[in-house]
């Protein structure tokens, strides 16, 4: 049986108290003044739910210490930074706080030849190894979406999958209302990193059945399996409603395709309904889908993620009703990656204030494989709040949308990689 929110909240509160203790056990004895190797930490730390609830200043000290280490390693081992003129003057020791990230160059996938600005896509097409640290000997290159050209790889090791899987499982899925026992149907493409991580995270949580959609499964098979496995939770994509809802990401079946096949299966409104909770991603949750979920009584949450970094931010199902972090309003998940929302003023990165919309930059802090620093992934977001009734201490971002226009950054006069 699917546990309802109140029961799960009690379990989560218990976990939070336990995780706080274990968090301090790990970090209290560590010296944060030098660069700390994030990969040397116990794996479970990445699934520790205390990260989002802890004192922000202490979190900043811990993560900036790790960033110093990873930045130094990236500069030393990754061709993309070694070849960059902009990185010649970067000193990892200058990173004393996460706000110092704003001093680092912005990494661009697509440059602008007319302005003499280089991007890494054209180089990565010829030499995908430029995005892999030379100290990595075995990795899987997961491609980006490739909406604007040849996809670029993010090199991921098994350890990286374990790190991201833990963060997704405990810091996104648990507050999203997933729990052990009940079955989850994962409609994501199993060959994509997101699809594999959902499976990994669901296994960590201990789902009863983790049903994976095979690319050849049609809608009828999917609906039949939802019923036969008594699937209480689905993980599915939902492209923007302006597009053909048979989006590419999910291998052909979107949430609305499922709903359109049999609406009585979803929500709590109909007797005999099955699916009561849904994890849906794909840019933003469309507002009509949110309205629908409210009307049919289906819990809904989302997580920001990409092959380059996952998870980056998440909304919640658990928490007080007055919390801000619902639906498209997502708390930043700080570590193993870091999203920052910035504007560019006179060539300088300035953190976006509450209410401001800016460019989303991705920084990877804990990864064996590809390390991104201030990578302009092609999204914009608005800073919604810095405090929330749920108790998390990380900023909330929302209104996340795709603006894959490098000129916005280039014309801002910023320094580039």
């Amino acid at each position, binding site marked *: 049986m699917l546990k309802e929110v109140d029961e799960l909240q009690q379990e989560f509160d218990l976990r939070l108290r336990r995780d706080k203790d274990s968090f301090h056990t790990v970090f209290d004895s560590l010296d944060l003044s030098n660069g700390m190797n994030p990969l040397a930490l116990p794996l479970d730390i990445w699934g520790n739910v205390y990260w989002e609830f802890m004192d922000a200043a202490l979190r900043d000290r811990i993560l900036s210490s790790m960033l110093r280490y990873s930045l130094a390693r990236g500069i030393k081992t990754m061709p993309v930074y070694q070849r960059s003129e902009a990185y010649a003057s970067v000193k990892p020791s200058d990173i004393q706080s996460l706000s110092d990230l704003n001093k680092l160059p912005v990494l661009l996938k697509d440059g602008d030849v007319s302005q003499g600005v280089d991007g890494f896509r054209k180089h990565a097409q010829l030499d995908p190894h430029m995005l892999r640290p030379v100290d990595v000997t075995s990795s899987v290159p997961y491609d980006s979406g490739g909406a604007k050209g040849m996809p670029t790889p993010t090199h991921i090791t098994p350890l990286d999958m374990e790190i991201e899987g833990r963060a997704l499982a405990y810091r996104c899925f648990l507050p999203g209302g997933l729990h052990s026992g009940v079955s989850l149907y994962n409609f994501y493409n199993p060959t994509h990193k997101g699809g594999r991580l959902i499976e990994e995270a669901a296994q960590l949580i201990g789902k009863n059945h983790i049903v994976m959609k095979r690319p050849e499964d049609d809608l009828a098979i999917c609906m039949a399996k939802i019923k036969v496995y008594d699937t209480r939770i689905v993980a599915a994509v939902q492209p923007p*409603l*302006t*597009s*053909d*809802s048979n989006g590419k990401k999910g291998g052909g079946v979107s949430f*609305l*395709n499922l*709903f*359109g*096949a*049999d*609406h*009585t299966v979803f929500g709590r409104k109909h007797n005999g309904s099955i699916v009561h909770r849904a994890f849906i991603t794909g840019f933003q949750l*469309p*507002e*009509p*889908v949110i*309205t*629908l979920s409210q*009307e049919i009584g289906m819990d809904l949450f989302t997580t920001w993620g990409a092959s380059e970094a996952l998870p980056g931010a998440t909304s919640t199902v658990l928490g007080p009703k007055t919390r801000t972090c619902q639906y498209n309003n997502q708390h930043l998940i700080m570590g193993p990656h870091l999203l920052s929302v910035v504007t560019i003023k006179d060539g300088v990165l300035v953190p976006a204030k509450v209410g401001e919309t800016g460019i989303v930059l991705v920084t990877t802090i804990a990864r064996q494989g590809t390390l991104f620093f201030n990578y302009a992934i092609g999204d914009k977001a608005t800073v919604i709040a810095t405090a929330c009734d749920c108790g998390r201490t990380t900023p909330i971002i929302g209104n996340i949308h795709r603006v894959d226009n490098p000129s916005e950054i280039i014309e801002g006069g910023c320094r580039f990689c």
Partner: protein
Amino acid sequence: MLALNSNFINGELKKSFSGAFTVKSPFTPYSFELPNSSSVDMSFALSCATKARERVASLSFDERCAILTKAAELYAVDDDEMHHIAQMTGMPIKYVRERVNFGKSILSSLPAMLRLRYGHKFDTITRELLRNGSDVLRVTGYETHRAADGIIAAFVPPNDPAEIPFLFGHIVMYGGVAIIKPSATEPYFSMKIAKLLTDAGYPAGALSVIHWDTSDATRNSVRAELVKCSSHRIIMGGKKTADMLLKVTDDDGNFVEEHYSTGRNCIFSSGNSKAIVAEGCDVELVAELLVKGAYEWTRDCVTTKTVFVVGEQKHRLIHAVKKLLEEKSSRMGSILDEHTEIGSVEDAQRVVQTITGLIDFKYATLHFGTLECRGNSYTPFLLETSQLHSPLLQQELPYTLTIVPVATFDDAIAAVNSSSQLLDDGMSMAVSVFSPHLTLDDFYRAMPESTKKLLTMKCHMLMYNKPSTMLNVYLRHQDMLLTEFLTHPLSINHD
């Protein structure tokens, strides 16, 4: 009046999950909100339709007849509803009332028509075709019509409220499940009739009506979803409408796929109805019937647009028609006034300019009408041309009848064929034939060769000594297409 800011899904008026847009009457200050449905609403409608199929399939022929009969009994359209239709279509209220009443008569007639034409046996639409039909072999046989598999998508135009009971009544009689997208210009009557039939017992979800703003590019995916998920599509509009619906483009406007080759498409593109006036007619009577067919409500596919007049009676006919038009022109005014005869036209200025241009360039002679607009209206036009390729024979200008003089009756038939060939589907919808012979039998006896030509004319309907608008639900119109389109025949050979 039902709430217009709703879709009709799963047997109930349902607010959209996706916002609304404003629709304004082109003729009066009247406006209302209509749902701007997204794929979420469409998914809901598709699911409800799928679920309704089983319940619809379990209905017997008699039960479906009973639903139509009950719907006809419950059929009541109040003044507010009539006013709404008038203000959105421009149709004078007098003719709204007439067309709405015709809708009721269609609903009550369809069961009997189906029984008569296609038969009723084994609780289904089944007709006995052969009984001991051969001397050599004893043969008996039936032909049954079973419901179409899948979901019907219907795109309905705004021009005539009678179309809605006509279409929905057929869908019910064939056990169809449909999602209807009415034109935003007049979206109400579809909801009204879908609810009426549902209230009368047709399963909830089997007739859904969904609205969206077709000028909103973000809603192209809704149309694409409906087209993709439907097995049968009824498109009551021309080829341009069909192309727009069946050719799918991506967000950047690039052609992605077409649905002409998928599912089944029934495209009603005929119009440009015509008349032939044979020599020796009672000209006064013919003028009366012509005016009825051409000017009462002029946005139907069966409205007479061109009349081929044989021989020397042209001047007398023009005189008689003009006399009647003078009377009609004296009754122009508000479309909500019960005495108004001439309705409003959305693009009145363009029509007047077109006609002015044709007259200026000697493509046509003006026999009646004033080349100026009166608000959204103008006096009815009576024109004459001798050119079969004139735009007057291709366009369907409201409140405009064009006379084309011809030497013989056979010339008239040839002219109908020639001008029909230039149309989208190569056929005119209806042709009225006015002749001094009382019946077609009489005509055949008098002119057997011309009758043969008449019966191969390029049109869907031939109205003998009747206005082209005088439809008879017992006879083939579009309904024959609908029957064959919406059902699968099954031949039963038994002994």
